């Protein structure tokens, strides 16, 4: 029985990191109707920037978090200007392939700045994990879960209680009507991109801290997990992103326990394929050209 509980805890921890990534993805997809394949690599850029700062100057956790988030925002702005702004009225595929081209840039830049295959990253809390009876819970898990919930609440407050939120939802709902209502749509795109990149940066920081390491694979990993969680939760829906992330985390934790790591990913992909093929309603409501 305690294995089930332990797996569920681990699943929630993993799932909350996916949820944060999926939130960033969904914000961009919701507003721009575009897939940003450079979302993960921008997060990796942030983590590498923080690692570089830590290696050269040594820095406290808060400063590292800030550097990660700022790095991700900077990288996100670069991607938005080069891949998404020029293709606003144009084709979604061109924007996506352009973002893939920049992914190549980020990966090579990372391997130039920090060539080693693996760099360690300071953990959030050095001490031993908390123990309740047979179950152990690492501080990182608690912080990750708390961060995910906090970010959801913050996003909900921004979207439903601020003027910027009205603008974002208007642009998501009907971009031309938003223009006519006097909303500066290009600015909303940029600010939303920055917000999404910040969320990604936070996720990247927490992921790097909980794994206590940074590798070049972080870019691909976070793009894939964010994309899958977004798909699982329903394309373009913010609550869906969180649910999708948690569901993916729980699914992976449990299937890893019963079937081993490689089968874990196999099962996750199989589930996504079956759900898509069955055209389950919550996953295929929003049209995605």
């Amino acid at each position, binding site marked *: 029985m305690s294995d089930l509980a332990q797996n569920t805890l681990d699943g929630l921890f993993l799932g909350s990191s996916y949820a944060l990534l999926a939130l960033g993805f969904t914000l961009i997809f919701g507003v721009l109707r575009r897939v940003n394949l450079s979302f993960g690599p921008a997060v990796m850029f942030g983590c590498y920037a923080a690692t570089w700062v830590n290696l050269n100057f040594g820095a406290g956790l808060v400063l590292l978090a800030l550097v990660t988030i700022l790095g991700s925002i900077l990288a996100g702005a670069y991607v938005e200007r080069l891949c998404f702004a020029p293709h606003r009225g144009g084709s979604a595929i061109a924007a996506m392939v352009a973002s893939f081209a920049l992914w190549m840039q980020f990966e090579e830049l990372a391997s*130039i700045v920090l060539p080693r295959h693996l760099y360690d990253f300071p953990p959030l809390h050095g001490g031993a994990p908390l123990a309740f009876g047979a179950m152990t819970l690492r501080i990182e898990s608690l912080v990750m879960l708390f961060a995910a919930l906090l970010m959801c609440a913050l996003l909900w407050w921004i979207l439903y209680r601020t003027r910027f939120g009205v603008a974002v939802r208007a642009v998501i709902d009907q971009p031309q009507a938003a223009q006519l209502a006097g909303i500066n749509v290009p600015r909303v795109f940029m600010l939303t991109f920055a917000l999404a990149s910040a969320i990604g940066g936070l996720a990247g920081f927490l992921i790097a801290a909980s794994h206590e390491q940074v590798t070049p694979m972080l870019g691909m990993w976070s793009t894939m997990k964010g994309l899958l969680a977004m798909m699982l939760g329903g394309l373009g829906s913010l609550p869906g992103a969180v649910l999708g992330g948690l569901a993916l985390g729980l699914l992976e934790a449990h299937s890893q326990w019963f079937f081993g790591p490689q089968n874990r990913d196999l099962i996750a992909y199989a589930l996504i394929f079956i759900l898509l093929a069955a055209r389950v309603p919550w996953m295929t409501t929003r049209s995605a050209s």
Partner: protein
Amino acid sequence: MAKAALLLILSVLPGLALAQAPKADLACKATGTDFVFDCTIRLSRGGKPLEGAQVTVGADMPSMPMAHNVKPVKAQAAHAPGEYRAKLDLEMLGVWAVKLRLAGPVRDQLILHYEFDSKGATPAKR
């Protein structure tokens, strides 16, 4: 081109000609300059050292080998029989698939996986 087309038609019948495949192992150490390694290659065939072969050494990354690769270099024969030396300039560290193309007495190709780090290279365990 005509020979290639002829070959296409001729060899439709199944045949099991499995010539003796050569073997190789690699010893590389870092040279101090970024990502450049000095490698000695020991070639053998049927247990005997393989001498007098022209060996070109290249390397691919496992993901996207056609694009992520390094320009091959010609290895020079070293003093010991069946030993060749080459300087390998990789673009980044990590696991590389080292590709040895042999010409001369035997024409073949071998691919060995090694993990390259700041010190040298060790066979990659995957």
